[in-house]
């Protein structure tokens, strides 16, 4: 029984490096999540709503998949359906061979880990490079990710320093920003040369066919924009009905995952690049991967399909904190892509109870996972159902518990006694006699030192049973079962009536103030000026960095005469296009015009279209975005529900400068996207 699992547990506990990394992760992640949720007005109500939304989708999954697929197809996205890992891999290989692809740039996708995509592609001679910093690190080490959100959570900076020295020729350093820069340089080349970009999907929006991907570093934007062909892998259950539901999920996912109000880049992809669009992938595919999910629909475990992969349950779990992601292995020692509480349900549900069912037993059922879950999945209940044998296999057999044999036997005897009060009393008496004799020998010490193999005796002593049980002492003293007296209605506990304080709708001034504060809080710079002073502000920024060139949007989207003014000041204006991307990639500044802004998260919305190349906001080191004050909205849902968001081939919400915390959770700015974001708000 799961001997390899036990060996992994012991190895994890004995690994001091791993222990300190896991401790740091738990302490930091739990705290930032709590702080992020404090900024929500009524997080409980949001969780309840999110649970309902996910439940509605899962109850009618087929209908939602069809709705999503038909809208995506209408938008020009090629939709594929894969029943299992092999089918999904085959589809990717076919697309790759159609385009004679050699290099594939990948942003983080757990589905690809689940189906073993990298390995399969490499076997067919393709070069696959992970571009999320954490994934890149573990790929260089030849390891799978150890956490669904922070793949390199098990490593310290020294490990990464040594790795980069060995693999990238970077002189050994413990300076995380130096390591991040080295990765930026190497991976920038990969983005530019890749034939295909592969990404995951955080949410598919059914009524628009939109693919939503959230990333912090900007690699998700790179792989969905620069390569000619983009393939998105999506678990079939990752659907939300509408943009409104998406904004609800987005208010919960980043907060739960990394403690951010919104991730730096929230991309919304509707279609491939259209004829007159300056950039973006020309061909987009989405592969809807089932791989066992629909089989779970008909089982008692279906609630696990609500999961939105935020990783909060891993961070909250005291067991994960002790053993880390790599310890969650099958009976044969095969790792699962999903670890922690959600993984201990998903792995057996998707890949079989006989292989992974034992993982569900490694939980004290403390409920910290349920408490942390943004969609309120009752994880302890699901773990218990797996222990009891409910799941896909159950359709064929009666549910059968996976309790170890000895435990089953022991509890069998206990059940026999506890189902018959007289037997129970006799057993207690026997235990009591044992207790009395034991006390004689232990010189009054009421504690028994059990051997380690008993489990309990491993690290603690066991109290001896009392020589006389409660019932045998008191059966005559306290009133024996008093059944005559009826009970009047119980005094009701004071129910906390939750009255919502009336929220006054904030004024424009408040909204702008909130926007500027949020922008500064996430490390971007905020400027407020009249259109006449925009030129001056931009020139100051460019001069400060000695920049003579700038990637810029069309005149049409910027204040009158701005580009001309820049040219007159000696700045060279470059309009980025797909076919000149190599030149564009060298330019250090970019200028764009935001269609809208979200005050509560400090985000700006950019839409792809003629005259509006999104690469201007992605490739340079410095991004200057202009936004009109009238376009600043209070909430995310107001902006996501704008018609333009649904029509544009691609849209991105940018919330601060590109960042990562993949090495020791140390915040590092400017990974793949711009490290500087200047937002100029115009009257």
């Amino acid at each position, binding site marked *: 029984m799961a001997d390899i699992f036990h060996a992994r547990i012991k190895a994890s506990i004995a690994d001091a490096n791993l222990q300190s990394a896991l401790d740091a992760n738990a302490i930091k992640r739990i705290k930032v999540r709590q702080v992020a949720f404090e900024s929500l007005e009524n997080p409980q109500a949001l969780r309840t709503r999110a649970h309902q939304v996910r439940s509605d989708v899962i109850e009618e999954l087929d209908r939602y998949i069809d709705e999503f697929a038909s809208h995506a197809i209408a938008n020009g996205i090629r939709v594929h359906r894969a029943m299992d890992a092999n089918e999904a891999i085959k589809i990717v290989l076919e697309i790759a061979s159609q385009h004679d692809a050699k290099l594939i740039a990948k942003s983080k996708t757990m589905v690809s880990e689940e189906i073993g995509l990298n390995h399969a592609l490499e076997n067919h001679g393709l070069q696959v490079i992970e571009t999320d910093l954490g994934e890149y690190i573990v790929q260089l080490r030849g390891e799978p990710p150890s956490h669904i959100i922070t793949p390199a959570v098990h490593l310290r900076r020294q490990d990464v320093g040594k790795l980069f020295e060995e693999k990238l020729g970077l002189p050994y350093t413990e300076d995380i920003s130096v390591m991040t820069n080295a990765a930026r340089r190497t991976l920038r080349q990969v983005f530019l040369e890749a034939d295909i970009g592969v990404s995951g999907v955080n949410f598919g929006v059914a009524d628009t066919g939109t693919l939503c991907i959230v990333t912090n570093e900007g690699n998700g934007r790179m792989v969905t924009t620069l390569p000619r062909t983009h393939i998105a892998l999506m678990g079939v259950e990752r659907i939300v009905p509408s943009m409104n539901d998406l904004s609800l999920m987005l208010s919960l996912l980043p907060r739960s995952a990394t403690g951010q109000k919104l991730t730096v880049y929230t991309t919304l992809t509707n279609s491939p690049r259209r004829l007159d669009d300056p950039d973006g992938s020309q061909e987009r595919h989405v592969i809807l991967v089932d791989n066992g999910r629909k089989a779970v629909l008909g089982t008692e475990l279906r609630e696990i399909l609500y999961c939105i992969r935020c990783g909060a349950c891993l961070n909250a779990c005291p067991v994960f904190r002790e053993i880390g992601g790599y310890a969650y292995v099958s009976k044969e020692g095969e790792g699962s892509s999903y670890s922690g509480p959600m993984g201990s349900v998903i792995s057996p549900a998707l890949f079989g109870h006989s292989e992974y069912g034992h993982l569900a037993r490694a939980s004290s*059922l403390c409920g910290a996972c349920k408490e942390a879950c943004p969609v309120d999945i009752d994880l302890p209940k699901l773990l218990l159902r797996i222990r009891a044998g409910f799941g896909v296999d159950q359709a064929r057999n009666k549910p059968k518990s996976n309790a170890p044999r000895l435990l089953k036997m022991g509890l069998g005897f206990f059940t026999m006694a*506890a189902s018959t009060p007289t037997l129970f009393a006799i057993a207690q008496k026997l235990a009591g006699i044992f207790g009395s004799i034991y006390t004689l020998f232990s010189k009054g010490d009421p504690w028994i030192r059990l051997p380690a193999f008993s489990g309990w005796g491993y690290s603690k002593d066991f109290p001896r049973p009392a020589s006389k049980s409660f019932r045998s002492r008191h059966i005559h003293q306290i009133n024996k079962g008093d059944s005559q007296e009826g009970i009047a209605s119980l005094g009701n*506990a004071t129910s906390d009536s939750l009255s919502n304080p009336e929220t006054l709708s904030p004024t424009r001034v408040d909204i702008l103030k909130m926007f500027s504060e949020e922008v500064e809080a996430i490390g971007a710079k905020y400027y407020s000026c009249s259109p006449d002073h925009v030129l001056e502000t931009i020139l100051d920024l460019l001069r400060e960095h000695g920049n003579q060139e700038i990637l810029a949007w069309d005149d049409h989207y910027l204040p009158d005469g701005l580009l001309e003014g820049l040219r007159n000041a000696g700045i060279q204006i470059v309009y980025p296009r797909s076919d000149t991307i190599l030149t564009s990639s060298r330019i250090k500044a970019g200028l764009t015009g935001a269609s809208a802004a979200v005050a509560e998260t400090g985000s700006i919305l950019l839409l792809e279209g003629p005259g509006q190349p999104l690469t201007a906001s992605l490739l340079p080191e410095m991004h200057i975005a202009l936004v009109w004050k009238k376009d600043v909205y209070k909430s995310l849902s107001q902006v996501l529900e704008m018609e333009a968001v649904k029509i544009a081939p691609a849209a991105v919400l940018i919330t601060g400068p590109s960042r990562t915390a993949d090495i020791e959770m140390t915040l590092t700015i400017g990974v793949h996207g711009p490290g500087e974001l200047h937002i100029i708000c115009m009257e």
Partner: protein
Amino acid sequence: MVKTVQLFVTCILDTIYPETGEAVVRVLQRAGMTVSFPPDQTCCGQPAFNAGLRPQARKMAIQTIRAFEPYPGPVVVPSGSCAAMIRHSYAELFFDDPDWKTRALALAARTYEFSEFLVDVLGITDLQAHWEGKITYHSSCHLLRDLGVDRQPRALLAQVRGAEFVELPQTTDCCGFGGVFSVEHPEISSEMLKRKIINIEQSDASVVVSCDAGCVTNINGGLHRLKKSPQAMHIADILDKV
């Protein structure tokens, strides 16, 4: 007004800590209650339920339901996890058995954890208890997260004369008990308990109070093995002292 309560003493208090069971009775009596002890009670079935042995758990749950059915009035349970078992998990246990589910829900509706009963139902926080020393409080998982009970035991402890209350760092972290978990995964359980013990020592309290004898046994078992001096106590044992 409530006059008589049915005590579900729990198998662990019954067999190992009968003195704590007596303390529960005395505290309830001091709160003006007549305490009745339905004689056919044994175990709520939680160990088997947590082990995944549902048929066995159902047998014990049925025994428990039958034991209390003839006796009306609130059922008081001096254990967060046993109370949670009856209140929440019985519905899960009998989800495909409407008859027993109805009977289980009827019992669930009148079942209260001990501190919850004192504070929420009786409206009592001051039991005239007296205890000299520094005490802290460990939030047991099922009590806190399944029953939402936290302010009640704290309110009771706040009224104990002579006691200096200090907060336990990371009080909501599991102590590593988890029933069968501690036997099946002693390595992990032991690490969790180590962490709890470090926090207890950091609090500098001489007594850590809990509303669950499972946590008390786990924490004390670890402390005894390490020959450390602080002690875990059931809340009834503190409230009992005058």
